[in-house]
């Protein structure tokens, strides 16, 4: 039996009737057509589906849409105007932090949260911070450099 849910997605109120078994990632992708949220494993390991739930990163593939009732969800699409995310994206471009791009949305959202909690992480803290986001292309080196670059750029922007 379908259940009604009401939540905020990227700042907009969304009401829907969903099967309890539908996970949030499929709700975003198939119902709202927000396809930046990728599915790489559907058991909560790879991190490609990471979104912000009430401001904190969560795996959209192991969060049921009915359990996100009332929540404030933000996907990469909803961060298009976020000035901090703009800096992070530019850093990933400058430091070659992506290849095929599939892990990238989850990696960007994890980075946004990591740098909010730890504005000046060292390389080991960055690696630990993104250890829940798998990338098969880059070997992570470009990603670590991108995050270091972003941290410095954000610090500079805040001082200015």
């Amino acid at each position, binding site marked *: 039996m379908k259940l009604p849910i009401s939540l905020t997605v990227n700042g907009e109120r969304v009401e829907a009737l969903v*099967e309890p*078994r*539908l996970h949030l990632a499929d709700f975003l*992708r*198939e119902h709202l*057509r927000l*396809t*930046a*949220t*990728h*599915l*790489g*494993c*559907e*058991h909560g*390991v*790879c991190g*490609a589906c990471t979104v912000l739930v009430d401001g904190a990163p969560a795996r959209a593939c192991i969060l049921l849409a009915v359990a996100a009732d009332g929540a404030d969800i933000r*996907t*990469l*699409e909803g961060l*298009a105007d976020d000035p901090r995310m703009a800096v992070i*994206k530019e850093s*990933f*471009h*400058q430091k*070659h932090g*992506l*290849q*095929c*791009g*599939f*892990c*990238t*949305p989850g990696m*960007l959202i994890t980075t946004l949260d990591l740098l909010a909690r730890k504005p000046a992480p060292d*390389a080991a803290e*960055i*690696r*630990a911070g*993104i*250890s*829940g*986001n*798998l*990338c*098969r*292309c*880059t*070997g*992570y*080196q*470009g*990603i*670590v450099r991108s995050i270091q670059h972003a941290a410095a750029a954000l610090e500079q922007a805040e001082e200015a």
Partner: protein
Amino acid sequence: MNAAAAADPNTGQGVGAPVLRNEDRRFLDGKGEYLADIQLPGLLEVAFLRSPLAHARIRGIAIPEAHRGRVFLASDIAFAQPISAVGAAPGFKASDYPALAVEKVRFVGEMIAICLAPTRAEAEDIAQSIQVDFEELPPLWDMDVALAPDAPRVHEHWADNVVVETRIAVGDLAAAERDAAITVHRTLAMGRHAGVSLEGRGVIAHHDRRMDELVVYSSTQFPHVIRTILARALGLAESKLRVVAPDVGGGFGIKNNFNPEELAVAALALKLGKPLRWVEDRREHLVASPHAREHRYDLTAYADARGRLLGLKARVRVDAGAYSVWPWTAAMEAGMSAGIMTGPYDIPVYDGTAVTVCTNKSPLGPYRGVGRTGAAFAIETLIDAVARAAGREPADVRIENMVAPDAMPYRSVTGKLYDSGDYPECARRAVAAIDLAAVRARQGRGEPDGRLIGFGMASYTEQSAHGTAEWVARGLPVVFGYEPALARFTPDGKLILHVGIQNHGQGLETTLAQVAHQELGIPVADVVVRHGDSSLSPYGMGTFASRSMTMAGGAVSLACARMAEKIRRIGAHLLQAPREAVRLAGGQVWFGEQFVSFAQIADAAYLHPERLPEGEDPALEESAVYQPGRSTGAFSYATHACTLAVDPGTGLIEILDYVVCHDCGTMVNPLLVEAQVVGGVAQGLGTALFEEIPYDENGQPLASTFLDYMIPGACEVPDVRVLHMETPSPHTRFGIKGMGEGGAISPPAAVVNALNDALRRRGVELACTPVTPLRVREALAAAPRAKTEVVA
């Protein structure tokens, strides 16, 4: 050079420049379009019913009445021809790989039925409701079980489970054996694993009413080739089939096969006239996508007292799984491993046998490094063993055995023609960068935390961009000899390159633009690269075998060079200058201080032919097809050197330092080259340390989710230091050599060598991958304690 040209902001974008990628923007905005992102009206989702058993006869399939019309079996798509990849080697045993199992299932994960529903969840409900009556057969769950004389056969009409056995024997092995002061024998094993692109495979098929064609989207590395084989398998005219590879979330070889899923979905969409979509999930990927590696080696090296190799005897056995993948055939892994075994070493005598074994497992297919990762693991661990027997530093023994630079071009004992390079210098640079003397001193001091330090290195040669001669020699159904490019200006002066390769992370939308810049002086940002669609680009072979930069780069260069000539002619005419006196820069044609823009030239070429020189054809479009000067391949090479620490209490390994010195000829974009090397190393470390799908005695795969199959995360991959050498290939445009796979070739050998170096004093030597903490602990626990103390 005039002031305007010197100030051109677009210089520094050509071959050799570290240009940032054109394709980044859409991915950073989450606007990449991968297969699962594509929606079509009326789309039905596919879930496959897959075999839960390794080996069984199908006695019957019961479909609940409620689901009739939504479940389709082999008989429903009987018009689809099975996949057949037959090698040319004498004695190769052919088998048919049907889209859906017909009478028998031969591995866990083999497809039995297609289930359709509006959502994937409902399609899975249907699959779960189907009852299959199986008659279980004894599973051939290991290659040695399959090789037993009385073993049941995977394919009944075969005499045994050997797909094919081939042998290369050159020189007098008996003499080498007789003359050897050192004889070293080793047996090695590499685990079976999966390719694990972060995006799984996937297929969408629908009928385009207006074009009256079947459109198949596939997350594939070679859409044009898929169109050819799919048309044949479906009995369609190729002109009535369009294959599109959208953004592809990693390939690494596993998306470089003609898969039964592609055949099944396309066939059923054709039959039903409805749009269908299958998106591979992670469990399907791990269980049923083409697998990687699983080699076993019996090796004997004969050497003189200093460790100079006199001869090598090798027997390679590869577990190829149940079927032969198209177009590579089941024999590819074993054949390539035995064929490149001597690597960068000058070994005069070789007797190599390659045995491909058929078992009840998912078929083995190409994966980054194909064959060579195993070959390097074999020869490189063997050389360390020889060095230990000679009582010498492995680095020294290794370098002494290498092909000398003055021997280039060099024909190896297995008949490979190495085109250029300085292998010993490459190895010396890697060893110097890691500071071997300091590592040895550190080992002597011991670690305060009780960990053991080890040094290991491994070298390889990577045949890349091989063309007609090589593929004909391998006897494949398709000869991947060339690449095309169509360069087409738009009337507003921007350039679109249509190419037959497929970009899935390599940065080809940028590097091919750099080649265009090199020939035309057009800003990279003004170049669009179109690929991955059989209706948009000329017929090409796709992206695999470290070939796209060399092959498509050569084609773009040829087409753009012709285009440059035409632009010069038109530009000179418009500037009223002699043709020899004009040059191209910054998207303009210059004569002294005067210029015309490409936009003005394109405008003339397309919209104002009256402005063109007399006899000049309108339009700005050139196409070219490129083949390298020699089609035997351009050989990249590298030495990897690493230091690691192993914890004898837990078996955990930490890579402390990792250096790659490599030579891929001329680098088009060193930024992207370095990233490809590092990414390859990360995958190689996965092979070395983590990744494995063991099978139990029932033929059940024991790693089917990311909960039990581990790939390296950010904490498990070290910062890799990459040193570049650039020896241009004499055979290719710009001297480019391919390099996409190389990073993944050496890590298993380098890591296992380093581990054994660290554990030497404990009297322990490991000879397998992955070297998991458990395997290290088992070896340590089994080592006689007394020996531990005695061996210094």
